């Protein structure tokens, strides 16, 4: 992981990307129990950022030429870690990107999505694997419920969250 963080910091230094934030299960790991994942989601911000045109070729070219990375379908293998580069794709993910929190791992400081934003994204996407992660988070109660509700209200996700909670309690209680 540290090797990946070093490369990502190099990318910022070399101007390939402006900033990066770790999302997905790797970010969730910081706040909760480990949940299974096989890749690291890295959200990046570039000067050519746009919601309509996404061009990751400068990122891939840099990694292949300078860091000996190997592309594999939607991933790129970097120092043995499968990385998926993503660009904030809507207003929720962009807000999550802007409100990311800084954490540290050994000598590296890096940003990860805030827990409440991670939850909001999982609620928005509603994939089956996210339901299990949400169940664990509901059980742990480590999140700030007021903060989560204010995000969900702004993005019209409160109803969906209530439905998910009802579904989870019906299964597990």
């Amino acid at each position, binding site marked *: *992981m540290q*090797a990946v963080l070093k490369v990502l910091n190099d990318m910022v230094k070399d101007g390939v990307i402006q900033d990066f934030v770790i999302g997905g299960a790797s970010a969730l790991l910081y706040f909760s*129990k480990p949940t*299974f994942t*096989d890749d690291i989601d890295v959200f990046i911000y570039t000067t050519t950022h746009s919601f309509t045109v996404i061009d990751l070729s400068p990122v891939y070219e840099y990694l292949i030429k300078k860091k000996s990375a190997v592309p594999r379908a939607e991933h790129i293998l970097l120092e*043995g870690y499968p990385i998926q580069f993503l660009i904030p794709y809507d207003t929720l993910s962009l807000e999550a990107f802007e409100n990311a929190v800084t954490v540290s*791992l*050994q000598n590296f400081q890096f940003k990860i999505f805030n827990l409440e934003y991670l939850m909001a994204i999982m609620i928005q996407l509603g994939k089956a694997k996210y339901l299990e992660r949400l169940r664990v988070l509901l059980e742990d109660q480590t999140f700030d419920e007021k903060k989560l509700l204010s995000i969900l209200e702004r993005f019209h996700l409160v109803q969906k969250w209530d439905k998910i909670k009802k579904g989870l309690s019906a299964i597990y209680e």
Partner: protein
Amino acid sequence: MSKHQYSSKEVFLKRMRRDKEKLDKAYKTLSFEEKLRQLVKLQEKAWFMGKMKFKPWPIK
């Protein structure tokens, strides 16, 4: 068959809940690095079960 015998279902459930609470508390005290190691262990299991697209992450 488990070696442990429980006098009743209630005793069994009580112990299960107690163990789960202990485990939950233990997870809260783990550092990010330790949790990363646990994730790799999960990945190793998944790898041997053929459920991983990639090899487990290297620990470094």
